[in-house]
């Protein structure tokens, strides 16, 4: 047996003994970014399919939340920065090689668009709403006329936003757990699932609830498939990747991952939705909450476990 002991005189803050440069701020942002992406995707997608009247919760009501959650997410991102007053440097350049750079630009596009999208529906959702100024009414009229263009841009950028939250992490080859290309699609699917859950919660229309319940079931299936795929990929790879997979297979993140992310966040709500589709009465609140908890936990577990995974000497 060969053993190697490493003693290092280094104790840099947030780097040693294990990396902890990214905390709850990033995990929270990845969650709300994915959720906003899911909500905006369904809103614009069903608008483009001409289902505005059939699925009002998805097209009109749920997107009302997105400006708020995006701004919360941006706030968390800002808190994460160590050199806060220089944040504007993000917007002096576009660096294609850096996912964080084009992610920042995507947020710059999608946040105002989400505000505009919600504003064009605000008088339908809240009939007593008054814009107070004539020019705001004129602006509203202009955007309502061009809703189709807005929807096309939103469909495109919401998918980018959803997938970028995963790519942000998978671009780091120094952290073997993150360094898997399945993370982008997994986070996109997870964001869509959270979006569908929120829409189910808001919907008062039986047809819409059923559609999103079925959609959610399919997405959960896809997520589970991605997770199995992720482990297959990691375990069939090099030693550092196998070590990374072990964090979830007996390592310190086993319980949070399999109990909170997979069982509580995917399997259980999936079963409840299945029962509901079979005719059982289950309060919508329960699967919705479970899905959101699973979603948050997925981001937290991946962000923290990824920083614990490393290259071996």
């Amino acid at each position, binding site marked *: 047996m060969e053993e190697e002991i490493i003693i290092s*005189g280094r*104790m*840099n803050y*947030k*780097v040693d003994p294990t990396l902890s440069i990214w905390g709850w701020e990033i995990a929270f942002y990845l969650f709300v970014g994915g959720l906003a992406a899911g909500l905006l995707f369904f809103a614009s997608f069903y608008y483009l399919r001409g289902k505005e009247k059939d699925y009002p919760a998805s097209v009109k009501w749920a997107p009302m939340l997105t400006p708020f959650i995006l701004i919360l997410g941006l706030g968390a991102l800002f808190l994460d920065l160590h050199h*806060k007053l220089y944040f504007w440097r*993000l917007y002096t350049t576009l660096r294609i090689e*850096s996912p964080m750079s084009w992610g920042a630009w995507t947020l710059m596009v999608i946040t105002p668009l989400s505000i505009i999208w919600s504003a064009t529906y605000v008088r339908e959702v809240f009939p007593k709403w008054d814009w107070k100024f004539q020019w705001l009414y004129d602006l509203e009229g202009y955007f309502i006329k061009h809703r189709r263009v807005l929807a096309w841009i939103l469909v495109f950028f919401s998918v980018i936003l959803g997938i970028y939250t995963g790519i942000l992490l998978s671009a780091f080859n*120094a952290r073997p757990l993150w360094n898997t290309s399945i993370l982008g699609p997994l986070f996109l699917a997870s964001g869509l699932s959270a979006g569908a859950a929120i829409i189910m919660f808001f919907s008062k229309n039986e047809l819409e609830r059923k559609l999103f319940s079925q959609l959610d079931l399919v997405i959960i299936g896809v997520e589970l498939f991605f997770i199995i795929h992720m482990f297959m990929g990691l375990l069939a790879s090099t030693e550092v990747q196998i070590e990374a997979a072990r964090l979830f297979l007996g390592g310190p993140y086993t319980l949070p991952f399999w109990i909170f992310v997979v069982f509580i966040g995917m399997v259980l709500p999936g079963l409840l939705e299945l029962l509901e589709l079979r005719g059982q009465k289950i309060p919508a609140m329960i699967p919705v909450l479970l899905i959101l908890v699973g979603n948050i936990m997925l981001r937290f577990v991946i962000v923290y476990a990824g920083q614990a995974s490393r290259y071996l000497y």
Partner: protein
Amino acid sequence: MRYAMAIDTKKCVGCSDCVVACQIENKVPVGFCRDWIVETTSGTYPNLELEFRSERCHHCANAPCVRCCPTGASHIEEGGVVLVNPEMCIGCGACIASCPYDARYPHPDGYVDKCTFCIHKVRKGEQPACVEVCPTNCLYFGDIDDPNSEVSKKIKKRKYKRLKTEAGTDPQLYFLI
């Protein structure tokens, strides 16, 4: 021109003089370091082998920290030296997460800090502080593209290893073994 460093692990005794010299020369805040000592023991008792390494930023030719920087604050200067421009750094931590050597740290002033190969001294024709101070003369710094530089000669003459090359970084620290 390509700056590189060779570290003679047969001569290094792990005294940490290089760490202290760097902290003083570069006014590194208390509790942080840009270079550090790694001590490894390998083998099975009683046949053990001890190795000391003075480590720092590897100034990778394919630097992941430069690639993932969203503002361009992390950049490559003359001679392939990887530097951070504090005026452009937002302190997002992406470069810290991207470095397989964990060679970067968040400076208390907000920006990300790291080894510069003492480029301010090198431009004046001097050697990096760690090289100057090493009591066993185990550090060699110079232009690897120049076949007559000390570092080139050492790499040519001796066996060496580079760390974590499987991370695809093309590191520029050569550990003579």
